[in-house]
């Protein structure tokens, strides 16, 4: 005979979450927004006009993103390694660069680099032609993200336990061999996810390049809204395009991460 206080079956605490508690509703919300925008663009003339005026900017946005990302990665790797270098000058110059960039807001930096630093540098090294506004803007982004990436590279390399380096060296591998075969491949697993996030962040921040007149997505949207006064249509469409791009990239990055870590198969 059970005690009187035993709960009835329907009053029992459950140890399993209900499906609607676990369901990714957020994905449904995003899906609904995308469906709504897609429908609008197909059926509504104003939205369709906005779409056709804005989306050609995608090529310049992607071009700027990839160019800035590649240059930033090179700068970031150099400055990240520089901070870990034995050489005093290298170490301190890298550190100063990172600290300066991280201490200034992005928009202020874009203006400063694109309108002052790059022109003066190009004059200094004696480039005959002025650097185009597009490349000035890209270099500005690359310099900024180079500093962020330097921290990622440095952290990634430092995330590899010291014992790994010691195991490599104790087998007779040189410092360089140990770095190449043991430290870097492991650092990559720590580096790829945040670098992927930075790629997406760069994509979004190319939006700032509109202030320099680059005809990317945001600039197109501003021109569209300024000439037609259709702010809602123009800005919704702009956001819609960025969102699609970022979602597509996120899915792609997840695949890359998976390919990069074969030893974790089955743990995900």
């Amino acid at each position, binding site marked *: 005979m059970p005690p009187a206080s035993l709960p009835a079956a329907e009053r029992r605490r459950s140890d399993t979450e209900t499906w609607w508690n676990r369901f990714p509703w957020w994905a449904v919300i995003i899906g609904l927004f995308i469906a709504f925008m897609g429908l609008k663009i197909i059926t509504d003339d104003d939205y369709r006009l906005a779409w056709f005026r804005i989306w050609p900017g995608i090529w310049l946005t992607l071009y700027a993103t990839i160019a800035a990302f590649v240059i930033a990665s090179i700068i970031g790797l150099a400055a990240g390694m520089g901070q870990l270098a034995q050489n005093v000058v290298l170490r301190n110059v890298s550190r100063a660069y990172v600290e300066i960039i991280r201490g200034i807001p992005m928009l202020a930096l874009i203006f400063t680099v694109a309108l002052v630093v790059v022109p003066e540098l190009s004059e200094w090294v004696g480039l005959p032609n002025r650097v185009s506004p597009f490349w000035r803007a890209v270099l500005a982004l690359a310099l900024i993200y180079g500093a962020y990436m330097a921290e990622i590279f440095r952290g990634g390399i430092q995330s590899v336990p010291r014992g790994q380096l010691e195991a490599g*060296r104790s087998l*007779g*591998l040189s410092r360089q*061999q140990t770095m190449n075969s*043991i430290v870097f491949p492991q650092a990559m697993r720590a580096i790829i996810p945040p670098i992927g996030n930075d790629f997406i962040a760069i994509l979004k921040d190319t939006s700032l390049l509109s202030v320099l007149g680059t005809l990317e997505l945001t600039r197109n949207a501003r021109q569209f809204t300024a000439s037609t006064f259709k702010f809602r249509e123009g800005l919704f469409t702009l956001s819609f395009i960025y969102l699609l791009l970022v979602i597509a990239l996120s899915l792609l990055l997840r695949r890359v991460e998976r390919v990069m870590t074969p030893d974790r198969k089955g743990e995900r």
Partner: protein
Amino acid sequence: MNMIEVRGLIKTFAPDIQAVRGVDLSIEAGEVVVIIGPSGCGKSTILRCINLLEIPTAGDVWIDGVNLVDQATDLDLVRAEVGMVFQQFNLFPHLTVLENVTLAQRKVRERPAHVADEVGMAQLHRVGIPDKAHAYPRQLSGGQQQRVAIARSLAMDPKVMLFDEPTSALDPEMIKEVLDVMLELAADGMTMVVVTHEMGFARAAANRVAFIDEGKIVEVASPSDFFDNPQHDRTRAFLDQIL
């Protein structure tokens, strides 16, 4: 000529951290020397000076007649001759077991891949886990990982093997499988320096046991003398604690 010759070894990390305070040790080829002592007494530091993972503050270390402290010595070449097994295994997690065992063979010994694979498999047989060749380290138990680490060092055909508490990170039921591999290695005539708390291993395999305290060798003796008839009070006190 001794295989390992340590003379006047001193290692100071900071003015107030004197990890090793003057150690002399001569080890012949084929000898097994077990080092014991309380935690923090400098055992690891002595081992790490023997393959120059730490640079001695003073003193000399010879491996098979080559002085490691000499700047002209190619350390990578010497280290290839000195295997080291760590408490935490330190396998390369991004490589398969076989890749762990062949990497240095290919890069340092410059053996072609098929030769390195053959040697690697032979060593995996020796430590009893050839069937795990294509697994990743994280899929192995601690004891298996440590045996792979031993195979990884052996694949380089080292003249000397250093062990730094190889069973201290293992669950009790896995200690024996690692010690068995080490016992076999000792029986095969490998020159070994082993830091361990496994007194059974010391009795069975050691030619000499050295007791270290506060960065100095207090007493060195054959296992029977050492355990049954320790000469120093500190040795006796330590043995009382651990036995």
